[in-house]
């Protein structure tokens, strides 16, 4: 086993890594799935950008269709960056606004109703809202979500979410990812293509995806890569710098929300390394020395990873016969 270091996840042979993914993607789609190209949802985020770039290289840009799927809560940046990316790789784009579909499902109404039960003066017309984990990851207790409402005058109100309201908010916002998945499959079937899934290793293993939503895809080319490795690929493949520099957000709630606030509770660079240490059985002392943390802190983070993986097992399970 290599001694633990901050460079342990650095991909030395990035060209080879990309070529291997491209070769596998080609053979998975053409031979295993018997499809003639790729359909991919692009959000202007780093993961979908890298997957689109890999797809363009694997199938040729003419066999890739990139679909932007905005809705009323999406940021305008997402669309602009997605367009910039597609232009750079000569991939054709389609825009499918899913707001009406989400309205039909009652996505916004059901979500806002649950928020208003917890923060009674919440006005969805003017206030912005998000859910987030406020605990530190090192605490030896499972993470619990709070809802935060930001008033037009900047006042911030935050309350712990009771179980019923938490579940209703999550279930209603999950309509977004599931509607996107439905639309991607519409186009994939229409074009006889495969749907390219964009989750990275953390999203897959920590369960930061929606079952049958963004977790619904035919192939997941970066599902084995750590977030910092995805950034390395992005640079190598020539993904626009603004996308690389953008802080990863969920682009799901009306208030701005980073993925770190929403789910991971720690910066990607640290999380990648500690996750690697955990899954490769590095001793907490050794990892702590490199990460400038005590062995106890690393042990607590290991436990939190273990809990997250166990709690989200249901998301990764296939239907049981």
């Amino acid at each position: 086993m290599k001694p633990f270091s901050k460079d342990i996840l650095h991909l030395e042979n990035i060209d080879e890594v990309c070529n291997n993914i491209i070769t596998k993607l080609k053979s998975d789609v053409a031979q295993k799935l018997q499809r003639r190209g790729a359909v991919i949802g692009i959000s202007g985020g780093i993961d979908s950008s890298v997957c689109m770039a890999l797809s363009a290289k694997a199938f040729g840009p003419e066999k890739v269709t990139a679909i932007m799927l905005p809705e009323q809560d999406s940021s305008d940046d997402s669309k602009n960056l997605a367009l910039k990316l597609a232009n750079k790789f000569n991939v054709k784009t389609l825009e499918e606004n899913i707001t009406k579909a989400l309205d039909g499902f009652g996505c916004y109404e059901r979500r806002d109703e649950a928020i208003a039960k917890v923060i009674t003066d919440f006005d969805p017309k003017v206030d912005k809202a998000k859910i987030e984990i406020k605990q530190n990851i090192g605490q030896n207790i499972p993470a619990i979500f709070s809802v935060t409402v930001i008033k037009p005058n900047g006042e911030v109100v935050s309350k712990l979410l009771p179980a019923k309201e938490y579940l209703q908010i999550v279930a209603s916002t999950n309509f977004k990812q599931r509607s996107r998945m439905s639309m991607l499959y519409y186009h994939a079937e229409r074009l006889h293509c495969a749907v390219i899934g964009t989750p990275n290793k953390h999203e897959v293993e920590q369960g930061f995806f929606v079952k049958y939503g963004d977790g619904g895809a035919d192939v997941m080319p970066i599902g084995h890569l750590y977030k910092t490795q995805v950034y390395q690929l992005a640079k190598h493949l020539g993904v626009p710098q603004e996308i690389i520099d953008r802080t990863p957000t969920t682009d799901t709630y009306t208030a701005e929300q980073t993925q770190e606030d929403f789910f991971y509770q720690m910066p990607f660079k640290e999380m990648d390394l500690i996750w690697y240490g955990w899954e490769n059985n590095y001793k907490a002392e050794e990892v702590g020395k490199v990460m400038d943390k005590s062995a106890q802190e690393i042990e607590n983070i290991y436990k939190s990873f273990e809990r997250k993986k166990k709690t989200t097992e249901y998301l990764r399970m296939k239907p049981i016969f």
Partner: protein
Amino acid sequence: MLTQVETKSKIKDYIINATLSDNKTISDDTLIFETGLLDSMGLLFLIEFLKEEFNVVVNDDELLPENFESVNSIIKFIEGKL
């Protein structure tokens, strides 16, 4: 008002019912998160139970292991709030 023994018994019964566990496997000091008895949804439902049963409201700054890690810590936490 409930005695400490009655409160303890209610909390233990709740955890046993919620987790479908054998009551012999849960002692007053069993670490309920460490042993995997409750996960984050389990903790959320436990917080709801404490509110319904004992009218105890948990604030986010009280979500600490020392307040919830075992039946004994929950009792101590509730007593401090009542």
